[in-house]
């Protein structure tokens, strides 16, 4: 059975390399090992979203039962999104779980993830903190997501206010990522973030 999986990934890999999305740099796929069991995907942040201009790297693990079961995918690049864990990069997407169908391919998975970035589902969250911010304060969510895109995915939008607040916490001896998480979780309220970090 492992044979079907490897055989199919081989074909899919060729297909993706030739696809127009790769030509447009929207998605990318690389082999990590030679057995076609682990791959590295990359998707561009969709235009007109907080993720625009960022490149998001994904870890793709192909199970032996592929394509009868979905590949295991998670974000390696840190991202602020209601359906993606800001801690582990785990993804909540139906087609990677019970809605998987054997005719789906790595290409369609990458494109679905790109679509997920433009259309979040806050009612079916993976990261409760992010989802709450998305529902309560959409502007704050967009600002935070843009900042994370800049910090981790090479996005262009620099928010000096956020950077300053992080720098103040770093000066107090807090690790940068930890400071960013605390500030993001408390809507960039420096006082409350500090309180939480030192409590």
């Amino acid at each position, binding site marked *: 059975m492992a044979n079907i999986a490897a055989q199919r990934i081989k074909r899919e890999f060729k297909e993706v390399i030739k696809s127009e999305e790769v030509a447009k740099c929207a998605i990318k796929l690389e082999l990590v090992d030679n057995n076609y069991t682990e791959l590295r995907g990359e998707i561009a942040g969709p235009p007109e979203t907080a993720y625009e201009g960022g490149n998001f790297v994904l870890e793709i693990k192909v199970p032996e039962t592929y394509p*009868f079961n979905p590949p295991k995918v998670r974000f390696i690049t840190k991202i602020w999104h209601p359906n993606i864990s800001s801690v582990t990069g785990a993804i909540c997407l139906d087609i990677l779980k019970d809605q998987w*169908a*054997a*005719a*789906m391919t790595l290409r369609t998975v990458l494109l679905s993830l790109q679509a997920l970035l433009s259309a979040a589902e806050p009612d079916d969250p993976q990261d409760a903190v992010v989802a709450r911010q998305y529902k309560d304060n959409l502007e704050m969510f967009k600002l935070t997501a843009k900042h994370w895109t800049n910090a981790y995915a090479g996005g262009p939008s620099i928010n000096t206010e956020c950077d300053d607040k992080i720098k103040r916490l770093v000066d107090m001896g807090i690790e940068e990522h930890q400071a960013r998480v605390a500030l993001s979780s408390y809507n960039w309220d420096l006082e409350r973030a500090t309180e939480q970090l030192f409590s």
Partner: protein
Amino acid sequence: MASSSSEVKESTSRGDGGDRPNTKEDDRKEDNLLECNICLDTAKDAVVSLCGHLFCWPCLHQWLETRPNRQVCPVCKAAISRDKVVPLYGRGSTQQQDPREKVPPRPAGQRTEPESGNGFSGFGFGDGGFHMSFGIGAFPFGFFTSTFNFGEPRPNVPAQGTPQYMEEQFLSKVFLWLALIFIAWLLLA
């Protein structure tokens, strides 16, 4: 597969002097048309779903086994099941392989006889087969009808001219005469 298509390409490019510059592209498109939607290889023991999607039977079988509670088409997610796929038989495909090697066996094709016009209208009972029930509750006929017709749909009328057809015609006539005699007896008694 690949070797045969490249042969075709070579012969056409030599013979026609580049009439069809897209032959290779065409070949690839044609191959794709016959690819299984699960293994992406040319479909073996091909079956097609009612929604029109092509699979290898072993691939589709495994998909149906993986999710017995949610059997949907891997392409369009329409309802699908073992009984609702149609096998495709290419010319000579049945001789190529011992079917016993094919585990699990591919579901058989369903064959429906074409509607045949019937010639039986002689006694004014409407359609071809004799179909009559007696409401009087006389023992022998009530017994016959309930025993022979109980809970079963009526079988198709066999084609005209076959031995079976002749036999049924004969039986119809026998029963008709029996019925007439019975009615006559009832009237006279």
